[in-house]
């Protein structure tokens, strides 16, 4: 449980016109469930892409199990195979991940690439389809399913590889309330290192115990107990995660900051 699996040190990342990550540093231990919070445009999705080795920091370094992840490192076939199998990313829009003709092929895609035996592939695909409740859709094209079902196909396609680290980019943004409930329960039971991004404060506590908060200035302004952060009004204002809300009590109107959060 205590072994460090991910280490980000002073990472900076810029697109053509703007810097989206500034001096970002943190470590993640094996088995931890971390929630990355921040408003839209704070750099959450970019950070996950760095962690998945899709883009590379312009400054600073990213270490996975002590190995520095660079473009050159991922050109090493054996390492790339290990890394892509162990660190997987669920994209915000499931549509961007689905391209195989059937749900079965979609889930089997990664395993086929690994050169697994047909029988093993079949067993694993059926196991995960059953676990996700999408068994009846195995022969259907994934594109015509509902948002929640597409999300489940994507998750099955990633989990079938038995990854060590699961990166989830705003996983509940396309889900209806019932699917969101299912997803939270599923995440709770998942025995893996999970890093989830969200700006939904109401769900954040259900997704992990530790919070890393990115400001609008693209720096980390908090790293620690999520529950403590959600009670810290100054930090919430700094992250622009709460807003001033108007109220009426009879004829009296007043306004104050609101979080829409309930603690036990």
């Amino acid at each position, binding site marked *: 449980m205590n072994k460090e699996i991910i280490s980000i040190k002073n990472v900076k990342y810029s697109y053509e016109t703007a810097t989206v990550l500034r001096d970002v540093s943190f470590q993640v231990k094996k088995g931890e469930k971390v929630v990355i919070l921040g408003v839209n445009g704070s750099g959450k999705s970019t950070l996950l892409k760095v962690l998945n080795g*899709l883009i590379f920091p312009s400054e600073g370094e990213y270490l996975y199990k002590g190995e520095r992840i660079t473009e050159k490192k991922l050109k090493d076939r054996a390492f790339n195979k290990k890394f892509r199998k162990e660190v997987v990313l669920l*994209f915000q829009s499931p*549509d*961007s*991940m689905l*391209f*195989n*003709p059937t749900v079965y092929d979609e889930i089997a895609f990664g395993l086929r*690439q690994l050169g697994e035996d047909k029988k093993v592939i079949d067993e694993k695909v059926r196991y995960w389809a059953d676990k996700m409740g999408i068994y009846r859709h195995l022969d259907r094209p994934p594109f015509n399913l509902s948002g929640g079902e597409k999300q489940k196909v994507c998750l099955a396609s*990633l989990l079938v590889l038995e990854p060590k680290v699961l990166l989830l980019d705003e996983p509940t943004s396309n889900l209806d309330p019932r699917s969101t409930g299912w997803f939270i329960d599923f995440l709770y039971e998942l025995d893996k290192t999970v890093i989830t991004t969200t700006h939904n404060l109401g769900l954040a506590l259900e997704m992990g115990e530790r919070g890393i908060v990115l400001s609008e200035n693209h720096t980390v302004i908090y790293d620690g107990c999520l529950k403590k952060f959600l009670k810290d009004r100054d930090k919430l204002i700094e992250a622009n995660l709460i807003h001033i809300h108007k109220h009426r009590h009879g004829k009296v109107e007043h306004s104050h900051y609101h979080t829409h959060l309930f603690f036990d």
Partner: protein
Amino acid sequence: MEKIKGLLYICGIFTFTFFHNIYLYILLIFFLFVLSGKEFIPIVKKTLFSITIFSSVVTASYVFINGFDWQYITLVNVRVFGITFMTFLFIKRVNLFKLFSFSENLMFIIVLSYSQILTFQKYLTDFRFALKSRTILKPDFSDRYNFFKRIVEFFMKSSLDRSKEINMAMKSRGFYTDE
């Protein structure tokens, strides 16, 4: 200033289209290269990437039908390169919103098109990243085919859905009425 740039662009298109002199084209392209400054390499790369398939098909078809006339083939390819390079440079250097600010309707169309381009650009990047993220070994031909087919289908359907949505939104905001 934007209107002057727009006028120069139209003059450039006119020159590339109505004159059939390769030396004039080369002179004009050299002038465009100088104008592009630091953006020279990225724009050249983008231009070559955009015209390779089109130019190859046109050249091959011409050779197949009319035989190998190197002067004509060079002229056509240099012309295509010149127009494409000039267009990319124009888009980089000109604020289209200011250029079309004289007409409210044109501005609406530019804004809608621009927002569509940005959305689709994001989707395309996500598709590319998702494939890279899920690819353990180099994808084989059928995977590449499925991926390409899916992208084409997705953008066709999205374009249709979004244009219906935009059409209704424009109607709802009084841009036009059914008569």
